[in-house]
């Protein structure tokens, strides 16, 4: 009742021990979570090189970049369209500081020096962009981050000294260590899998740590957060910095995957792709972006053949993605994850009262 009584209950509470925080939804708690993890681990036994890298590897890379958007949008309520730009910037930096076919530009640093440098610069880029974006809310955040993305795209197109203009940088070296060429299909797949898993679990873990909880508080009610003693803008900028690290990791993997980078890799429609991937999968859970990325990659890869088969122009694969996007947004604002959870809850409802989905907002 009162603070005085409250102090008296302290001892009993200490003895009982505070109960654990409520369980969070994660892949490892889902019936299919372990099965999926096992499947991803033995994938090289099942899939050939094309599927391993072009489908699953690309999905995990794209999903990781979209995960950085999910972190900002789902937990922080900040829709940033510059996440691919940060990834692309990290990729460019790997090319510029590392070894590539453009010896006049690349500084030739070894990968273990060029990669951390690229990540540090990407975090700096994301932090500065975030510091600009947090002064605004809602649609203005989208506009500012989109403007940063567009500006970077045009800059890379026109700058020849560092970004080599519209031709970009080619034959970028990939890492060799422990006697392994990490760009061979199987080694590269596992490298991607490890980085993606680290990012995924880091986001999942952080969502229940003070930093992540505070971010969700900022999403729900920034004014109240300030009235609880939080520096709201500092929290938002820190979130941008963390998201930039994830996007940067995705960007490094991306540039090792294609071994070249050009303005086309950071074009505005690529930035929008990341938004589509995150929204289609669902921005309320870290697993959403990976699901979205899988759907996106499957469509991008096979829609062409499919469309040609039914007598349409194969370049219209974006039409399919667009229609799928419309359908998902129409039926579920939480993307595929939202559809799945509703279906699952309907199953549970028969024997138990529904427990709400958790961190959803909108």
């Amino acid at each position: 009742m009162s603070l005085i009584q409250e102090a008296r209950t302290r001892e009993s509470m200490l003895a009982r021990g505070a109960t654990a925080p409520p369980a969070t939804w994660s892949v490892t708690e889902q019936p299919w979570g372990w099965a999926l993890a096992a499947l991803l681990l033995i994938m090289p036994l099942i899939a050939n090189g094309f599927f391993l890298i072009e489908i699953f590897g690309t999905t995990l890379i794209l999903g990781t970049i979209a995960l950085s958007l999910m972190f900002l949008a789902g937990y922080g309520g900040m829709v940033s369209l510059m996440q691919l730009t940060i990834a692309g910037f990290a990729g460019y930096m790997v090319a510029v500081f590392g070894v590539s076919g453009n010896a006049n530009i690349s500084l030739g640093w070894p990968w273990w020096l060029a990669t951390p440098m690229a990540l540090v610069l990407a975090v700096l880029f994301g932090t500065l962009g975030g510091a600009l974006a947090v002064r605004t809310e809602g649609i203005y955040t989208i506009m500012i981050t989109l403007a940063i993305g567009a500006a970077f795209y045009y800059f890379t197109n026109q700058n020849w000294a560092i970004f080599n203009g519209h031709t970009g940088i080619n034959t970028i070296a990939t890492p060799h260590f422990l006697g392994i060429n990490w760009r061979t299909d199987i080694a590269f797949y596992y490298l991607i899998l490890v980085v993606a898993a680290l990012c995924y679990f880091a986001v999942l873990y952080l969502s229940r740590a003070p930093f992540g909880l505070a971010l969700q508080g900022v999403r729900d009610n920034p004014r109240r957060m300030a009235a609880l003693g939080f520096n709201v803008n500092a929290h938002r900028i820190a979130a941008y910095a963390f998201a930039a690290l994830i996007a940067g990791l995705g960007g490094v993997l991306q540039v090792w995957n294609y071994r070249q980078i050009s303005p086309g890799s950071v074009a505005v429609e690529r930035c929008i792709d990341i938004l589509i991937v995150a929204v289609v999968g669902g921005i309320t859970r870290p697993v959403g972006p990976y699901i979205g990325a899988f759907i996106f990659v499957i469509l991008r890869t096979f829609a062409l053949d499919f469309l040609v088969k039914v007598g349409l122009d194969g370049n219209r694969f974006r039409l399919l993605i667009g229609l799928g996007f419309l359908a998902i947004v129409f039926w579920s604002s939480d993307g595929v994850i939202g559809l799945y959870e509703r279906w699952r809850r309907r199953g549970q409802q028969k024997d138990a009262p529904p427990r709400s989905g958790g961190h959803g907002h909108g």
Partner: protein
Amino acid sequence: MDRVADRLSALGSTAALELRGVTRMFGALAALTDITITVRPGERRAVLGSNGAGKTTLFNCVTGDFLPTSGTIRFFGEDVTAFPPYERIRRGLRRTYQISALFLGLTVRDNVYLACRGVSRARFSMLRPSVNDALMQAAERLIEAVHLTSVRDQLVSELAHGQQRQLEIALALAGAPRFILFDEPAAGLSPTERRELVEILTALPPHIGYIIIEHDMDVALRVVESVTMMHNGRIFKEGAPHEIESDPEVQELYLGGGHE
């Protein structure tokens, strides 16, 4: 000799909250005009006045949501006029909102935990709290103090209105509050819940002072020792509850006409 005593007694007698000539303009409209208020540590005061009298604007100036157009605000002797809200909160100021300002997408426990974390260190901690985390336990005790233990794992959006009001108060009690601003805490509460609210307010430790905005006189005048009447952004009258209640001018202006 006397002067020594005067000087010594003046040492410890800093006001909890001291407003000097605070004016807040919205364009050409003066929401607050020349407000001067001194509240002692531990003092409990009601701010009364009809809608638009400037009560909530006064709170917003004290917490720093709005900066005053002119005037100074001191909190326990420190000039906080230009401080951002979070700096004032970290110094022991708290507030509740007329319309609950909660984190609807989080559980009750997370809401209270955030309140405890906000006024302590490591707000940016990337490590999950352990089971024995002191703040987690402080949150548990606060939840128990406002009778929300049974719903602590529920999302705040699922709570009943009365429970949300209880949580609103719990968030303001986190940490070590020195002074609290309650903005219509009884809004929308049932008679039983009102009694409970009065109980919580009167049971607060004596060193915690507060200002309460409340239209329900049964609540307001029972939990305070002094009253400030506001009208059109100015201080209209100050006094003890019984003086204000029996003041003919006040009755004319507020208790008689405008009171619903």
